[in-house]
């Protein structure tokens, strides 16, 4: 019964989405007020039915209703409750359901919090989001229905992929999806502005906070994904350039460009065509990521082969949404008359360069990700391009970004003098180069050009940001800093500081990490990176749905106890072995122990230990960036705009009554 209710809810949600996609846009075009007014109730109705549908599937998981095929293939009775809940979005059908729910959630929130935006504009935005919803709901109902029943339900379900049975990965997809789908708001605003023929600064102002929030979610999602890969895959790495990772990284890069470009469009009225294009790209890449990688449609040949109708639908849908918006773009963008000029030395130039570099980076990653897929599609073979390509492209492209992060903030809008800029930047330049090399020479184990470059860049960003604070504070000094800088300003400060922290983490951990593969017996100890690792043996025990060997390693430094680590090796029921590393985390170093295989009968094991300096800074940098994005999204002027709009509406209604 419950699955049928879920099924019905999805169909009703589709009806609501159809209303939402057709009437508001048509009404805005023809000037029919009653059609425009349908936007809000239709969006909220869709949200209601999506929530019911989602709740029904979750109920199926919690009640172990194995007559639902999706539940039977992705859960069993011994799964802990957390993984029953996260199992809902663990595979193709459920993740689509989750995606669509997130989309209706964003749409609902937009209708509720856009009082400062003209009603016609909101109607168009909601309509565009409705078109996307229709596509997803149709896809789900026609090709990937999560509520399909089994004629002969099994007594016990299959196991959820053990890789997904982890708290980090339970929250990683929701955050990522909030980010992916959040870019649909910026996309919808851009399309709505083009439909209305008004590509001015206004749409940029309205969509900026939404874009920032989506970007914050995506940043957090990527950080958590990377952290998960670090401790769960057990290889001590934090980024693998896997297509799945790239699928989230590309929209992030374009989203970063979009966040910056929106600022220029709003404040200076420049880059109008650029910004629209970036909004389209960010969402297109999110769609591409969702379909091509998340759902496993193109990475696994098998999934495609079993159901070619999925592939056909996806291509049609992408063609309509992306192709349609790019056509609209080519028509509207050619009508833009830009009257804004700026000189070579200006903040605009800095931001333009930033955007170009980010675009090139995203394109290179897209090429590296799609090239193997394209070869595959052409029948040449399935290959991986691998980290060598990505690292050689990514590092030279991002170093100039760090430089620009410092220059851009200090340059003036429109026009600055090259000489005064150079004078301002001379001191930070000297200090960062001197400081970076000095630190590498004296504070680090051995000299390395990579580490020196990393530290110079990090110091550069830090010093230019401090200089920016001083400039903003003006004559009032520290008091002025807190008085004059808006939340958006602080957002920029923390976002850029995040780059510095990230760069330190990447440079130091990739150059100074040490590791050792050992054959170790009970009671033996090993010395690495200034620490002693004493192996106290391993014992076999059972978890809820796996058997495990649990080792015990006592870490000490110069005789003083530091930590006791428990690396595990788990055998899940589905037959996949998993490594759970034992990690002692610290701000300046991580100690990481992974248990290998038993060697012989005398209790010896293979063990791998790592000393990873500053690896936490990689994620800390990401958290700084996310915090900066959040501050920028919560800038006071958005609240002022909202309050003004509310007062106006109240005045209007009051006036109407009188």
């Amino acid at each position: 019964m419950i699955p049928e209710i879920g099924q019905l809810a999805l169909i009703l949600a589709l009806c609501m989405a159809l209303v939402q996609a057709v009437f508001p846009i048509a009404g805005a075009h023809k000037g029919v007020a009653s059609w425009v007014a349908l936007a809000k109730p239709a969006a909220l109705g869709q949200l209601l039915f999506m929530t019911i549908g989602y709740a029904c599937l979750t109920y199926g998981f919690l009640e172990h209703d194995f007559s639902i095929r999706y539940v039977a293939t992705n859960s069993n009775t011994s799964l802990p409750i957390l993984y029953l809940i996260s199992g809902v979005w663990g595979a193709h059908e459920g993740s689509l359901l989750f995606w669509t729910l997130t989309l209706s959630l964003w749409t609902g929130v937009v209708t509720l919090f856009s009082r400062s935006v003209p009603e016609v504009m909101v109607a168009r935005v909601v309509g565009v989001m409705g078109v996307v919803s229709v596509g997803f709901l149709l896809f789900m109902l026609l090709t990937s229905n999560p509520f399909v029943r089994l004629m002969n339900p099994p007594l016990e379900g299959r196991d959820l992929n053990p890789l997904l049975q982890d708290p980090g990965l339970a929250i990683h997809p929701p955050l990522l999806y909030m980010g992916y789908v959040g870019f649909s708001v910026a996309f919808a605003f851009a399309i709505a502005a083009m439909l209305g023929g008004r590509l001015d600064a206004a749409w940029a102002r309205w969509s900026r906070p939404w874009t920032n929030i989506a970007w914050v979610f995506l940043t957090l999602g990527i950080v958590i994904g990377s952290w998960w890969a670090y401790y769960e895959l057990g290889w001590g790495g934090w980024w693998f350039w896997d297509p799945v990772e790239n699928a989230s990284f590309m929209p992030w890069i374009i989203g970063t460009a979009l966040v910056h470009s929106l600022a220029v469009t709003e404040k200076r009225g420049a880059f109008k065509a650029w910004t629209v294009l970036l909004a389209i790209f960010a969402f297109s890449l999110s769609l591409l990521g969702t379909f091509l990688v998340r759902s496993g449609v193109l990475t696994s040949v098998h999934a495609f082969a079993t159901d070619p109708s999925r592939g056909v639908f996806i291509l049609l849908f992408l063609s309509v949404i992306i192709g349609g918006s790019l056509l609209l773009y080519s028509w509207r963008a050619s009508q833009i008359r830009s009257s804004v000029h700026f000189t070579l030395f200006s903040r605009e130039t800095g931001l333009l360069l930033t955007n170009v570099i980010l675009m090139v980076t995203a394109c290179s990653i897209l090429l590296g990700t799609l090239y193997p897929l394209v070869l595959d599609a052409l029948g040449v073979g399935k290959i991986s391009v691998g980290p060598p390509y990505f690292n050689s492209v990514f590092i030279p492209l991002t170093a100039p970004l760090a430089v620009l992060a410092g220059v851009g903030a200090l340059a003036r809008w429109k026009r600055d003098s090259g000489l005064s800029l150079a004078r301002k930047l001379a001191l930070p330049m000297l200090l960062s180069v001197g400081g970076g090399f000095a630190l590498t020479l004296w504070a680090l184990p051995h000299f390395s050009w990579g580490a020196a470059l990393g530290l110079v860049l990090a110091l550069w960003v830090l010093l230019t940001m401090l200089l920016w604070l001083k400039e903003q504070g003006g004559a009032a000094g520290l008091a002025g800093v807190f008085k004059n800088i808006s939340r958006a300003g602080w957002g920029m400060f923390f976002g850029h500081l995040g780059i510095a922290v990230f760069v330190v983490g990447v440079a130091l951990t990739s150059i100074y990490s040490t590791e050792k593969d050992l054959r170790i017996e009970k009671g033996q100890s090993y010395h690495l990176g200034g620490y002693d690792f004493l192996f106290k043996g391993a014992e076999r025990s059972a978890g809820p749905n796996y058997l495990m060997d649990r080792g015990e390693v006592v870490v000490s430094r110069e005789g003083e106890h530091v930590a006791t680590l428990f690396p595990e090796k788990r055998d899940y029921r589905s037959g996949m072995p998993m490594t759970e590393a034992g990690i002692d985390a610290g701000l300046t170093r991580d100690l990481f122990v992974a248990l290998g295989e038993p060697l012989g009968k005398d209790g010896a094991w293979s063990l791998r230990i790592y000393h990873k300096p500053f690896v936490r800074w990689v994620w800390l940098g990401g958290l700084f960036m996310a915090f900066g994005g959040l501050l920028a999204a919560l800038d006071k002027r958005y609240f002022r705009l909202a309050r003004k709009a509310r007062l106006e509406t109240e005045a209007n209604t009051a006036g109407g009554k009188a």
Partner: protein
Amino acid sequence: MKKRYLIPFGIFMAIMAIFVLGLYRMGEDPNFTRNVPSVLIGKQAPKIDLPDLFDQSKTVSSSSLAGQVWVLNVWATWCPECWREHAFLVHLARNEGVKLFGIDWRDDAAAAKRLLVDKGNPFVAVGFDPESRAIMDWGVYGAPETFVIDKQGVVRWKKAGAMTRELWESELKPLLQKLEKG
């Protein structure tokens, strides 16, 4: 309308065209991407002499398997498809008695050893091939790839892409049984 604003649309349509082509060919033959015939099939297998991954002062050679039916698997740690098939290869080696000879291609030796220690080593021997020496003879252009060589040293079968249970049940297992008898 200025033409340059049509560029993004043009690029997008080109990408779509490639996807449509891929999909069309997939519709004709669900397995077509993996059935690229190797010119080697039916020919004598090229000999492999490579440094041993675990001790590069030693050499591993395919001649040690002469007279037996064996399977060559080309893999690397930078290849996510290879991670996906790894557990199944371990299963084949341990429970089905398949003799796997591995070539670790364009890889970092330390990372490769670590993977085998962590996730199990399905291989009788692993040759380390950072400069694509042996790989060139076999005409491999991506990882993973899998070949079957019979008792006479003739290449009988080849697949690009990860080994799966379906592939094992439908093709590899019957072939190996036939070759063992013959």
